[in-house]
């Protein structure tokens, strides 16, 4: 019964989305006769949010009690699993994750309907209508081809469990983080469509859209950082980015959202870049859907194995065509009515942000081309694969100049500035860059890309802090703090990438117990190898005593682990983290002569990549808080003014 309750709630949601769409269209028409219908748009969105939450709650409950008569639970859960993995199992699969997606989408819709008061009423109605239109497609997808509440009869005695590789708390929350980000971008998309329909591409529209972009961007950043770290320690290859199609699928929306965030800022503050912001709003959501399509349809070959289904692929492709094609055609038809916006000179904050936007878009294009190129040539029966030799140098062409502008851009004033004003700071940054470049080059002749990376990291780090100069730090808006922290995070992450690429050292040896292995500043002693077993795995575990520059030895335990249900072999690497890098130890097989294969990496500053990524996300979160608190204060002030007016009117009357 409980499962059917969830299904009914979901069907009702779909019906309400249909109602919301009709009401939105009625509101857009604005004729008096349809006013009653239009009034239903907001309540429809609110009730939809409640019903969707109920439906997802039902799914959580089914997983919590392990109701094996539900197909999804039987396929993905097991009564002996820890509660946290039972719950995370509810969205660790295709159907459940799509239900989570529509639930978050409905909650976001409810939030706009309840709280957003800044948009003109017709734009608001068009936005709600667009939101319902997008949601309707996803409801159809869920109900027609991925029903999470499908029954299984007869019910099996026990569930199929969850892949042991996925029994990882980080991974349990990695996909939902990305999904939340995608949903945030879908809201921005709906607002863009709403503004296009009513020809209201204004600074106010950008301000309404901005918190959604910021929130989505923060979550996407966290999702990518977490995914990169997971691949690093779980796959046992010592790399942190592989340019795999699935990684690119998450990177492309992030690049588009980053560009959108900056262009929406220009539109909000200066009423410029109107058409560009609209276009990026469409592209950002397109990239989220394209990513989902590429991952779920199995159209591209990837190291990430997903359960793929061509029927679902076709369904997502149809949705992609309707939404993205529709939005682009609408924009093309309305292009004439999106006025150009305010002018500015090249030497200005806007100018720097345009460079940022063009560079980010170019990188997005490069990643998109590299990801889809194999698909394109395959249609002509030519098989190719595209990897780091393409992505690294080609994207560097745009990343490097963008970073120079990142170091200088925030120093410029809006609208028009003179180079003479920032010349001292600019020359100081260039001087710093030259010193770092020469110093690092003379000290250790490393390759050109990491060398430029370290140089630019130093310039961006200092440049990102320069906007703090001469300001009262206690009175500085939170949004500016957010920008400074995020830009500083870029420098930290960049330094980590460059240092790891340039200075990492690797040793692969066959060692007897008692042998000494040296890598970089580390000395390791293989103290012993013993078999150990866990609840559903067996492994061989080495005891490896490592010491940094002859200091106190630290005991580490890398494992080669074999799960038996389903049979999977994983490498449980041992990590020793210092502030200046990580020692990464992996254990391989035993040779016939009894020696063990041991692989050691010394990866200087590699952790800075993820610290930097988290700083970027933190900066975004602080900026988001800043924007929201300013908005709340403004609302409070407006209410005070309105109250006072009422008071005065009453006093005048009385």
């Amino acid at each position, binding site marked *: 019964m409980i499962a059917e309750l969830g299904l009914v709630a979901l069907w009702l949601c779909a019906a309400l989305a249909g109602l919301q769409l009709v009401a939105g269209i009625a509101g857009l028409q604005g004729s008096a006769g349809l006013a009653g219908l239009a009034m239903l748009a907001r309540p429809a969105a609110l009730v939809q949010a409640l019903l969707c939450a109920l439906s997802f709650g039902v799914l959580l409950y089914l997983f919590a009690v392990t109701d094996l008569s539900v197909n999804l639970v039987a396929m993905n859960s097991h009564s002996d699993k820890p509660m946290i993995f039972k719950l995370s199992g509810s969205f660790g699969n295709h159907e459940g994750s799509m239900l989570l997606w529509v639930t978050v989408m409905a909650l976001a819709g409810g939030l706009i309907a309840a709280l957003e008061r800044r948009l003109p009423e017709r734009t608001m109605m068009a936005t709600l209508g667009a939101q319902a239109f997008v949601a309707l497609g996803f409801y159809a997808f869920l109900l027609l081809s991925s029903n999470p509440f499908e029954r299984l009869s007869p019910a099996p005695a026990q569930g199929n469990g969850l892949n042991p590789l996925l029994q990882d708390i980080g991974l349990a929350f990695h996909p939902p983080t990305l999904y939340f980000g995608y949903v945030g971008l879908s809201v921005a998309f709906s607002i863009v469509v709403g503004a296009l329909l009513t020809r209201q591409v204004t600074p106010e529209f950008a301000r309404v859209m901005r918190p959604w972009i910021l929130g989505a961007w923060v979550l996407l950043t966290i999702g990518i950082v977490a995914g990169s770290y997971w691949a690093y320690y779980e796959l046992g290859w010592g790399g942190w980015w592989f340019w795999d199609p699935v990684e690119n699928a998450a990177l492309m929306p992030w690049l588009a959202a980053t560009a959108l965030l900056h262009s929406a800022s220009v539109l909000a503050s200066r009423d410029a870049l109107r*058409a560009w912001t609209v*276009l990026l709003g469409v592209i950002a959501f*397109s990239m989220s859907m394209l990513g989902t*399509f590429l991952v779920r*349809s*199995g*159209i591209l070959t990837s190291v990430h194995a997903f359960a793929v289904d*061509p029927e679902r*692929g*076709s369904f997502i*492709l149809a949705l*992609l*065509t309707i939404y*993205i*094609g529709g939005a*682009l*055609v609408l*924009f*093309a038809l309305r*292009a*004439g009515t*999106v006025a*150009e916006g305010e002018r500015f000179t090249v030497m200005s904050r806007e100018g720097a942000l345009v460079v940022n936007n063009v560079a980010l878009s170019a990188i997005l294009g490069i990643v998109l081309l590299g990801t*889809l190129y194999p*698909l*394109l040539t*395959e*249609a002509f029966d030519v*098989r190719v694969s595209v990897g780091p030799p393409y992505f690294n140098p080609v994207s560097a062409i745009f990343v490097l100049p963008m970073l120079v502008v990142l170091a200088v851009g925030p120093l410029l004033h809006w609208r028009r500035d003179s180079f003479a004003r920032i010349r001292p700071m600019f020359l100081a940054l260039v001087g710093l860059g030259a010193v770092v470049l020469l110093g690092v080059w003379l000290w250790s002749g490393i390759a050109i890309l990491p060398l430029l990376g370290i140089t630019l990291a130093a310039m961006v780090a200092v440049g990102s802090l320069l906007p703090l100069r001469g300001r009262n730090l206690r009175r500085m808006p939170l949004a500016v703090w957010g920008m400074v922290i995020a830009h500083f995070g870029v420098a930290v992450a960049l330094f980590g990438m460059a240092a790891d690429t340039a200075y990492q050292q690797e040793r*692969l040896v*066959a060692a007897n117990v008692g042998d000494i292995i040296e890598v970089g500043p580390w000395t390791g002693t293989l103290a012993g190898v013993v078999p150990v077993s866990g609840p559903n795995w067996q492994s061989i575990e080495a005891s490896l005593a490592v010491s940094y520059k002859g200091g106190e030895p630290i005991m580490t335990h890398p494992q080669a682990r074999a799960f038996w249900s389903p049979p999977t072999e994983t490498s449980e690497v041992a990590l020793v983290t210092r502030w200046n890098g990580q020692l990464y130890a992996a254990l391989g*097989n035993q*040779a*016939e*002569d009894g020696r063990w*294969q041991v692989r050691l990496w010394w990866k200087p500053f590699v952790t800075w990549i993820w610290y930097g990524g988290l700083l970027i996300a933190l900066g975004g979160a602080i900026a988001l808080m800043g924007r929201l608190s300013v908005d709340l204060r403004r609302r409070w002030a407006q209410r005070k003014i309105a109250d006072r007016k009422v008071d005065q009117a009453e006093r005048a009357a009385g």
Partner: protein
Amino acid sequence: MKRLRIFLWVLVAVVGGLFVLFGYQLTQPKDEFIQSAMVGEPLPDFDLRPAIDTMPGLSKADLADGKPRLVNIFASWCLPCRAEAPQLETLRAAGADIVGIAIRDRPEDVAMFLQLYGNPFTAIGADDISQVQLELGSSGVPETFVIDGNGVITYQHIGDIRPEHVQTILYQLREAGA
């Protein structure tokens, strides 16, 4: 404004083209194995340096001396190559002459690999930039080719050799010698 409109229509056309491509690819069956177009063709010219100091390298001339051979494409960093090592040993014991091509490898790693998993090879060439591998039409490691005594490729096995494949490969090798 006019330029913006033209740009947008071009964008719509490009995106539309992409969707058509996606739709077409969705309807295509996914074949996991890509047979080399080189089967039935003579070997390309190559001359590879030895992959380890103690064994000879490999050139096209070595494979055109009248004796049919197996060419095994492998690498020390490749996990399935370890899994197929016992089958290569079986093939060698059954009388096959096996030569190796080590892909993107280092001498010390190859030596380690052979020490750990056995050495069925009579010669190993080092292919540092996958050039010979690509010219053979091989798309991954491990792969095994049957070469007749005149330097012509007669058969390609993709992926690791499992016990059930051994007889097929021996048969192909005999056919190549006939």
